[in-house]
């Protein structure tokens, strides 16, 4: 797995790039995320993930990548990415870019990661969104505006 090369950022036009160049956390360290993915898994990714007992995130990733059906596999990988993002958005973004091919699914998942980053660090989320391809950037900035409005509401109370 190319955990570090993507952090340097892709420069292809219209492609997503990572959040920043912070070294992402390796998946072995995140057992809690693995458990959470397993809790969600049956609804959208089918049952294979449930077969694992006490896995690491690396185990879950490996299992997800082995799902034969393309759509189910991508759904599982997206679930891992967005769940991971609640704990570590940078690693989640890099995992997403490496694991899910460019397209609508990848873009939606990037939005999900950006949402999760925004509630913790709006500036980093905004900086990342600004580098999105144009169409996704519009959606992302609108979503950030919405989250920002809500945060301002909280602060004014």
């Amino acid at each position, binding site marked *: 797995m190319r955990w570090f090369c993507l952090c340097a950022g892709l420069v292809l036009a219209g492609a997503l790039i990572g959040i920043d160049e912070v070294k992402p956390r390796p998946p072995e360290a995140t057992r809690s995320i693995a458990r959470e993915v397993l809790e969600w898994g049956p609804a959208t990714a089918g049952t294979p993930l449930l077969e694992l007992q006490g896995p690491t995130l690396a185990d879950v990733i490996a299992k997800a990548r082995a799902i034969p059906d393309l759509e189910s596999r991508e759904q599982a990988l997206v679930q891992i990415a967005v*769940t991971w993002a609640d704990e570590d958005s940078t690693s989640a973004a890099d995992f997403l870019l490496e694991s899910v091919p460019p397209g609508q699914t990848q873009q*939606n998942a990037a939005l*999900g990661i950006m949402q999760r980053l925004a509630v913790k660090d709006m500036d980093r989320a905004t900086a990342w969104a600004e580098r999105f391809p144009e169409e996704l950037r519009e959606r992302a900035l609108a979503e950030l505006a919405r989250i920002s409005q809500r945060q301002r509401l909280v602060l004014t109370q």
Partner: protein
Amino acid sequence: MRNLFYSVIAVACSVPTFAFWPADATTIFNSYNNGFYVGGANAYYKNDTSGGRSGFWSQAEEIEMVEDSYALTGLTGTRDMITALCNGFLTQNGSDWTWNTFNDDIAWAVIAFNRAYQMTGNTTFRDRARSNFDAMYARAYDTALGGGLWWTTGKTSKNACINGPASIGAYLIYQIYNDSSYLTKAGNIYNWERATLFNASTGQVYDNISSGGVIQTWVFTYNQGTFIGAANNLGHTSDATLAANCTKNTLCTGGILPDAGENGDGGGFNGIFLRHMAKYMKDRGLQGSYLAWLQQNANAAWNVRRTSDNLSWCNWRSATPTGTRYSFGCVNSAIALQVIPADGEGVFFYQDSDFNGVPSQLLGTGSYTLAQLQAKGVSDNWASSLRVPSGWQVTMYQNDNFTGTSWTFSADSTFVGAAANDQMTSCKIQTTGVIFYQDINYGGSRSQSIGVGNYTMSQLAAKGVPNDWATSLRVPPGRTVIMYQNDNFTGTSWTFNADTSWIGSAANDQMTSCKIQ
């Protein structure tokens, strides 16, 4: 006519009541679509038809607005729009929505897709609603704080904005699948929200409780609305009434729902409230308590529209500004006119020009002496403007009993003219052709005004009369309408020589062709 200054004050301080027609619902719906719908993208756009598609939850709510319209009219074209919009939503957001951290976003879309299935029969929409509800519920529910659903995957608070819609979404899945486990979920979610966020003394639905157990006591109309909707589904009418009365008596000013910023989530709050409130009123037969208030809001929404394109924003005390508007900021008004029934179609007189000042009550066809006009809220020598439905005609007389100088109007008039201003003492109102209506008492959708002739099924359809559809009709003086059960003037027939608010159970929704003589 009052002077301009007085008129401005009147607009600012009062909102006329009972001043929108059933046909206005179609007008504002079409105007909204003209303003924001992009057919090629199967989506509503954020501002005008630019600025990109509406976001996740606002798109879902805009789909619900179309569903509200379909529930009102039953038009095939509107049903097709629901299908197109849901397909567009899936294209944009995928079939698995759990990438979205906001559980409430998913719940709103679940409601929209369940309703879409109920209206179109498209099982893809049903399946997407259920699978995404299941996924959302699995990650959102836990026993912390006594139960209920977390607002986001960050699990910082459990909010009314997820629990109300989730209860409604679960209830819809229960209805569709007859799976009682979803009824249990709907009930449990509701019970938690009631126990945790509902003030059973005041009827307020508080916004959220934090993970630390602190209740945030903001009160928003959309939370009041979804609470009422969930309570109505589950038969908790006392709770629903308390929340409704709280909204009416404490959140409204002069009866009108609160203003909101048009470019934010709040832009759509009131529409959500009205949707569930109107359904509660209808389901429980509470028109006597709530209809006038809801009509006041729908009327306010209609009256603040800008007449250049009939778009109406979310602040119902001031006119919709010129320039680019936001689709979500205009959706409330469109919803209001879809879900709140009008009193019917007819003529309104206004004390001032431009439909300002005190309005009259709705006047149907007939001849009105001064005494009869006064009973409808029209004083002698008082009217300065009037609204006249398409196919109707008003003759104003300077003196009582239809004498003296007369003036005739067959369309809306923002000013009756210097000669007629403040002159009317009696009047006659009639239709110029036959008009068929979808519902009893000249309600629901209506046809064009139709002149003398014989009309087959296809010819009626071209005039806005679907097959087996008509329930009431207006007939001009001297005309006769013969309705036929079958095409080409065959089968059982029914004859009408005057306005008929209910054509009878035998003829109802039976007409396929007709003759107008």
